[in-house]
């Protein structure tokens, strides 16, 4: 065995190295955010937010179409994904403490790890191909499917935190279990469930791959659900891949908008979660 001095030296070296790793991880976030801010601020102004794209070279081009499109498709996804996810979460927490529940949980967890592009291909085969054209609706469905497992698992976790005494109190008053679950348990856990839903929204807001062959993209403002629709993420991809300097600037500005929204959501969730812990 090495001498004590050498062992101590190794100990200190490893402490320093692990600290360095932590510094690297933290620094890389700020490094990336710094570039997004610096790159995005150049082209960002009010008209950028309120105008739709114009032909190359024409001033006053914007991403209003993409912002509206993203908002519509994320809402659609939430309308589809949240009820399913919350109901499934209720089942898992209230009735899922057995082998069958574990099996479901296992599949749902595994579904969370499936690449989102696969969901895009799946929705293409069941919706876009039969309907013969790309549509915002299919984009919303793809995002909804992505949300389901996330919402289900966070809902389950949040509902599990509700003390059993509350359920028992409700049942002792003669209320049927479904009323206890919906009226007491779900209500008590509502902040937590809402936090989980926000987390799911933050996750799907940044998705591009499932929209590639469902909603596609569109260069003007549209609210028709049965036609292709623009989204912030697709627009960033499209602009970044183009050869035009001007579009690159727009990609950075759109990125700044998107990342600001997603980070704000994440920080809001963090604050909400902390408040809840302090109350408890």
């Amino acid at each position, binding site marked *: 065995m090495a001498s004590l001095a050498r062992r101590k030296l190794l100990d200190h070296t490893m402490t320093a190295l692990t600290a*360095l*790793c*932590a510094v690297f991880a933290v620094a890389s976030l700020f490094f990336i955010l710094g570039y997004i801010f610096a790159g995005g601020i150049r082209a960002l102004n009010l008209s950028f937010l309120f105008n739709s794209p114009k032909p190359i070279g024409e001033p006053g081009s914007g991403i209003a179409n993409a912002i509206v499109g993203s908002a519509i498709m994320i809402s659609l996804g939430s309308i589809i994904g949240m009820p399913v996810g919350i109901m499934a979460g209720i089942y898992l927490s209230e009735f899922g403490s057995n082998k069958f529940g574990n099996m479901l949980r296992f599949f749902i967890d595994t579904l969370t790890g499936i*690449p989102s592009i696969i969901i895009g291909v799946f929705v293409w085969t069941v919706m876009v191909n039969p309907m013969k054209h790309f549509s915002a609706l299919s984009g919303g469905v793809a995002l909804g499917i992505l949300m389901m497992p996330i919402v289900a698992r966070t809902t389950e976790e949040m509902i599990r935190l509700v003390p059993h005494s509350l359920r028992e109190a409700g049942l002792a008053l003669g209320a049927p279990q479904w009323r206890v679950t919906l009226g007491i348990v779900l209500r008590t856990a509502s902040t937590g469930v809402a936090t989980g839903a926000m987390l799911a929204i933050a996750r799907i807001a940044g998705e591009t791959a499932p929209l*590639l062959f469902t909603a596609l993209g569109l260069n003007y403002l549209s609210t028709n659900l049965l036609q292709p629709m623009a989204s912030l*993420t697709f627009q960033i991809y499209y602009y970044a891949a183009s050869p035009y300097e001007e579009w690159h600037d727009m990609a950075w500005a759109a990125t700044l908008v998107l990342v600001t929204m997603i980070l704000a959501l994440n920080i809001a969730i963090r604050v909400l979660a902390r408040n809840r812990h302090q109350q408890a």
Partner: protein
Amino acid sequence: MGSTLAGKSSASPLSPSEPGLPFLRAAPKVRPRIGDPLFKLTTGFFAVLIAGLAVLIMLEMAINSKLPFAKFGFGFLTRSIWDPVREEFGALPFVYGTVVSAVIALIISIPISLGVAIFLVEKASRRLSNPILFIVQLLAAIPSVVYGLWAIFVLAPLLRNHVYPALQSSLGFLPLFKGSQNGLGLLTAGIVLSIMILPIITAVTTDVLRAVPVTQREAALALGSTKWEATLIVLQNAKSGVSGAIILGLGRAIGETMAVTMVIGNRPQISASLFDPSFTIASAIANEFTEASSEIYLQSLIELGLILFLVTFIINMLARLLVWSVTRGEGRGTRG
């Protein structure tokens, strides 16, 4: 019986003279409780629906990739031709690109992620570790397409102008670092991926390490080991959980689409040089799906998707089992 009780209770309505009793008698009058089974059935339906989606996705993709399967069979996996004009398709170049980029990502990411996790659990106080963990999670919140944009315009030029020439002049004798470099290729994709999978490996490893009982550390320290030696023992005991974390990271790296598509160069070839453009399964689907001009071309892409699905499914299953084996059970009680 129900009717007599009901009749009686309606005849003698709730009155202060009979506290409690009428309430009990009235109870059976409450409609038979179909509410509860119905509730269980409805919520259960949705839970099964989500779990069933995994099966449905697989079936749907299998049905929609019949043409290439009939033509190439299992040989699809080992054919290295990808020629849409002559309608010859094989998955090997994409499998190669996927595996190599994921391996590069893991080689870079594993030591750093483990370092961060060890620092957070073994070295830092909760006051310091919680904010750092949050920042690492934010790294996971940044969308893939944003990583792609950053990689094209910041990382790739940086690597092309500074890192790759240095690599080539020092290690250029290896076939890995031969050839011309324009900054877009396998190595760049692997490096971007390494940053993207860092959060998941770190987060899961942190969970796993926290689940190892404090007593193990105390025992090691009491026997005279240094803190680092105690950490090694903790790692030893958390081995399967840490491998689970790494495999989860592998799953992410394999399925990551947008960022890779934007920097890997998109060329279906198997080349020894890491500087050369390549293709992953996910990026091939993203890049060619809307351009597929023939049915068999399209179905070949869907078959690629099926392969990706099956591989990530198995990887995720394996990873979850490994992580569960450590984080559930007695160790959990010692978490703060």
